[in-house]
């Protein structure tokens, strides 16, 4: 008797189709496809547009190294309107104001993550209404007229400022979406209520 006839048969009987190889190939292909799909999702997710947080808004100026101390009384700020610096111990409640507000309170709100949108007091009524429509329904925005503003509309966050010619500029909304409680916020988690001021709307 030959050796081969005593060993148990491995593989298909003579005349039967060879099946092991295609099954392994099917499993292997299925697995590779699944892994490629998972890898594809992973790569897609990491390249997802974190647009709000990372896209630069054209025209934005940055002012680093601002003081954060509390100070009573009037403060002389370097920017108009100010983007930071010493401020009152009380912050200004976020919302829409029809009269100018004291900068010393508003700057504290910037420290809490608020965006301060200011406009020239003589801005046409429909522009003011457009500003109010855009600001309404946001939790961390102050809107107020500001005398002697260098541009018709200026949006500020802590250490950050954008001058605009008109209320309809899409950069205003982009600024609000990016900087409300945004990466520039020195005191993230602080509230924009329970401070001073009574906004007519929020």
């Amino acid at each position, binding site marked *: 008797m030959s050796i081969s006839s005593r060993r148990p048969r491995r593989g298909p009987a003579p005349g039967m189709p060879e099946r092991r190889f295609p099954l392994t190939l099917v499993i292997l292909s299925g*697995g590779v496809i699944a892994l490629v799909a998972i890898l594809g999702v992973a790569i897609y997710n990491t390249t997802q547009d974190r647009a*709000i947080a990372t896209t630069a808004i054209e025209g934005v100026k940055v002012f680093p190294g601002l003081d954060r101390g509390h100070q009573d009384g009037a403060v002389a700020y370097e920017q108009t309107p100010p983007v930071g610096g010493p401020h009152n111990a009380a912050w200004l409640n976020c919302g829409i104001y029809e009269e100018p507000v004291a900068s010393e309170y508003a700057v504290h709100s910037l420290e809490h993550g608020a965006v301060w949108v200011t406009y020239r007091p003589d801005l046409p009524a429909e522009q003011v209404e457009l500003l109010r429509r855009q600001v309404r*329904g*946001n939790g961390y925005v102050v809107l107020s007229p500001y005398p002697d503003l260098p541009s018709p509309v200026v949006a500020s966050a802590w250490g950050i400022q954008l001058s605009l010619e008109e209320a309809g500029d899409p950069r205003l909304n982009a600024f609000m979406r990016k900087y409300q409680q945004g990466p520039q916020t020195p005191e993230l988690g602080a509230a924009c209520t329970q401070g001073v001021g009574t906004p007519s709307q929020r």
Partner: protein
Amino acid sequence: MTTMETTPNNAPERGGITNILVIVLVALSVALGALWWLTQPPQEGDPAVTFSRDMSYHHQQAVEMALLLRDRTDDPELRLILIDMALTQQAQIGQMSGWLEAWGLPITGPQPPMTGQMTHGGETMAMTPEMMGIQPQSEVNKLTTLPVSEAEVLFLQLMIRHHRGAILMAESTLSQTQRAPVTRLAQSIIAGQESEIALMQKLLADRGAQELP
């Protein structure tokens, strides 16, 4: 002759073990990949993300109102429920901010709060802050100017509406996501605020006042 006879026997044996190894390796990789996929954080647009932002904004108004009244009322039963609301909801705001940060997402989203879609009674519809119980600032401001007893009644009326909106929002989110810490918080909000509504209805009745329609 001998070599030719043993080779056909040995080749299928090696092939069998190799095939099994390949199958096991591929199955393991797919399982690990699936596990990885299931533990990924949500992306922008996910209901868990929208809920975290919308409910935080909603809670902020509740905290504001509760503390405004607490500054003025000395009714001990009311003061207790007010501080309870304020502390609980402020903590939940913190919880939701923590999730967003852990998910690598900004606190503020591409849309203002409560301007997305909600599900109610099996239907999907556009939501507004008012629909979800956000009260007008002009009403909230009255809490600081009305005589205290009237401010108490107004608070209870506004907050019952406010709570109903939060419950709607939480229920909508439960129908849109199965993500664990989010569903737990949504359920906790529903249970907690339903119970607070009942308490506030009693406090209104004590004051001889009615809910708003």
